[in-house]
């Protein structure tokens, strides 16, 4: 008998209409799968696929507007789908544990973490105050937190993201449930932390024989960590089976596409400076000559110092690099490495404490007023979050036209014409001209942001995590677009990212940053094939999905 068997699960979300009527929008249709004792089943899909809704339905914690329309949820052979909330309370925590998505907000901010772990034991009456306190310390130690007695008395904000996720795992395993639902447990964490957390879950599973239902958008994570795979799209199952079999020879076209788009799993040829992607070279000479000319961006000894509580803190500490024209240079690092601050100083959106930046041979330090504005024609920025970087009250046409108006480029008719060209360039239909950002999808918004960046005809574009917020298939499309634009327009990119797999695919040269410093710089090929620094090696090893490539396994394509 399976530990968990989901049969024909159907869930919908209800929404109150303008006139008080109730509309139901189906989110999951007829989903069936099983989890055997001790195994890891990964549910994979992009946003809107219904993977999280499925997990929520299993534990009976759908959002208030969610409704279970049909199907069975058999836990150890008993159908709990029709159970009352009161009856489900005896199952939650005791038989099914939950590891949530967002460690930053998943703990009550006003209670010490020890109390929150102990609460699971208290709710199910496992021992008196003293035995619970004792067990809490044991659990904290088990999930790998040093000084567990001290940690138990600390509040969530006093712990790092990785530590909070460990606390949440301690809560999930406190009662040794037979099944743990892990909903995107590491999406909000840095790769090296992600790896350690996934290792911890694996260890606990091996130790106690608990089964795991792992919900993830990351095919690499699913590949590394799961025994069986369920691929979902638009609330339906596209494909399921043993992980190796599915990824080795996908049956559904959608699975094949996901595999093709997942950056960690597609290993294209490395780009190199000698083969700078430009066709504009016809007028500027050969690619090699192009590269040998003055670099588009030269950064020397850049320092940014903040004062935090009277003590100076160096967010960026002596960073230097060059970007040859027409190539992509990536700044890679985990959160807090100083990569975004560096990008902002290159843009002169932040003032460097010391050091210099030259764009196209022009020194930017101390440039103000009209000259600074002129400089900004040459270097443009695309932000990570396309929801926040577009003015919600402007139409797409106004957004893309704005730089042209600012720089006084062309008359009214000319500008309109140019806006149409730019939208065409980023493959958006003219129909979006009159729309506002909220009427567009995430990928479309990012295309608008790119069109705006291209409007003044820049030489350098800084891409700050520009594809990180997007689903893999959209991400792949935007990356292809960026490559195409670079070839056609001879653009130089400074590509800021935490995602090594993406960096491998798009950049010619890479600088790895950690704690405000560059620990290693080189061509992408050299860095990936022969990393020199221990930190680079740790980063590379942590990328999900690469374990299989290193082992030489052929991934289906």
């Amino acid at each position: 008998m399976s530990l968990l068997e989901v049969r024909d699960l159907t869930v919908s979300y209800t929404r109150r209409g303008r006139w008080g009527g109730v509309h139901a929008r189906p989110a999951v249709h007829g989903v069936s799968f099983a989890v055997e004792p001790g195994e890891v089943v990964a549910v994979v899909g992009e946003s809107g696929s219904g993977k999280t809704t499925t997990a929520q339905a299993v534990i009976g914690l759908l959002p208030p507007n969610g409704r279970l329309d049909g199907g069975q949820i058999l836990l150890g052979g008993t159908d709990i789908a029709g159970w009352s909330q009161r009856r489900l309370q005896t199952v939650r925590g005791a038989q099914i544990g939950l590891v949530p998505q967002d460690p930053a907000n998943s703990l009550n901010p006003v209670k010490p973490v020890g109390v929150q772990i102990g609460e699971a034991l208290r709710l199910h009456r496992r021992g008196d105050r003293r035995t619970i306190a004792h067990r809490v310390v044991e659990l904290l130690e088990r999930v790998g937190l040093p000084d567990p007695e001290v940690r138990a008395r600390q509040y969530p904000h006093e712990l790092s993201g990785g530590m909070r996720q460990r606390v949440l795992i301690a809560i999930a395993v406190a009662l040794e449930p037979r099944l743990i639902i892990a909903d995107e447990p590491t999406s909000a964490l840095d790769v090296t932390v992600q790896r350690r957390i996934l290792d911890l879950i694996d260890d606990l599973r091996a130790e106690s024989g608990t089964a795991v239902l792992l919900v993830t958008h990351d095919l690499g994570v699913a590949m590394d960590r799961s025994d069986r795979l369920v691929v979902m799209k638009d609330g339906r199952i596209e494909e399921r089976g043993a992980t190796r079999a599915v990824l080795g020879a996908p049956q559904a076209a959608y699975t094949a596409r996901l595999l093709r788009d997942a950056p960690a799993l597609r290993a294209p040829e490395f780009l190199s400076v000698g083969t700078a992607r430009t066709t504009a070279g016809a007028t500027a000479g050969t690619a090699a000559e192009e590269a040998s000319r003055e670099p588009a961006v030269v950064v020397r000894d850049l320092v940014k110092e903040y004062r935090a509580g009277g003590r100076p803190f160096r967010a960026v500490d002596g960073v230097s690099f060059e970007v040859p024209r027409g190539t992509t240079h990536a700044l890679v690092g985990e959160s807090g490495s100083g990569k975004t601050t560096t990008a902002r100083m290159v843009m002169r959106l932040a003032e460097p404490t010391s050091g210099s930046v030259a764009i196209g041979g022009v020194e930017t330090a101390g440039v103000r007023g009209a000259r600074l504005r002129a400089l900004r024609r040459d270097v443009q920025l695309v932000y990570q979050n396309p929801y926040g970087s577009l003015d919600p009250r402007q139409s797409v046409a106004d957004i893309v036209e704005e730089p042209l108006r600012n720089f006084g480029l062309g008359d009214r008719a000319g500008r309109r014409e140019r806006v149409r060209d730019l939208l065409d360039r980023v493959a958006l239909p003219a129909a979006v001209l009159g729309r506002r950002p909220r009427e567009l999808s995430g990928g479309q918004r990012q295309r608008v942001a790119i069109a705006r960046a291209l409007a003044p005809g820049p030489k350098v574009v800084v891409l700050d995590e520009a594809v990180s917020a997007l689903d893999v298939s959209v991400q792949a499309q935007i990356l292809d677009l960026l490559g195409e634009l670079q070839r056609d327009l001879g653009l130089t990119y400074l590509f800021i990212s935490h995602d090594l797999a993406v960096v491998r695919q798009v950049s010619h040269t890479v600088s790895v940053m950690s704690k405000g410093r560059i620990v290693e710089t080189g061509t992408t090929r050299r860095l990936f094939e022969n990393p020199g620094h221990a930190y680079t090696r740790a980063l590379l090893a942590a990328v999900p999905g690469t374990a299989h490539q290193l082992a030489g396994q052929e991934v289906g394509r």
Partner: protein
Amino acid sequence: MRPGLILSWALITLVALWALVPGVFTGYDPIAGTPAEKLRAPGPGHLFGTDAVGRDLFARVVHGAVHSLSGAFVAVAVGLLLGTLLGLVAGSVRGALDEIVMRVVDVLLSVPGLLLALTVIILLGPGTVNVAVAVGVGSVASFARLARSEVVRVRRTDYVEAAFGSGGRFAAVLWRHVLPNSLVPVVALAALQFGVAILAISTLGFLGYGAEPPTPEWGLLISEGRNYLATAWWLTTLPGTVVVAVVLAASRISRSIGREDG
């Protein structure tokens, strides 16, 4: 649009029409009464009944709309213009000026609105315009604080930084992005303050600092009706109900501003 919101707009429109063309809604004179018909209970002839000198109460409420509405308009205009200007300047310039403006706002907020209004009235003397100005002064601080916090919030957004990044001048970015995006909550507050101002003006009218009798100002109407509590309930209850309905409608409209579904 939801039914409650439609009702609110309909009510505000109706009251605005009372203020503009009162003659369309009632044939009775609001000032001159018919002593023979004094203290009649509400009925077909007199919708809201009549008062102690035989004036039709409905006519007095309809003709009183212009006093309450124009007073509320003046009050909101004073608060909105003065407060928003202060908040915008403080939020966009920052620095020492911001500090000074916000301390002044703290001081204004520390004194209850009614006492602030009474202070203004003791200085300027009673009267409809003075009461409106007094109520407006009381709301300057709220407008200033909201406008400033909105400007500061919008200035921190990526799209404002992106506007500077694409070559925007300070004034252009302020005008094109900061102002329109920070004004929506301010407009919502103005709608809310419209209701609050009607409340405050009627309170000051009730205390006797507004219009002189026999002006049919709403607060004054209720104050005059106090003498007939035992015999003529309608003299206080019905004008008060109108005030409550108008204030409720204003707050409902305020809540719908800046939201998609209303």
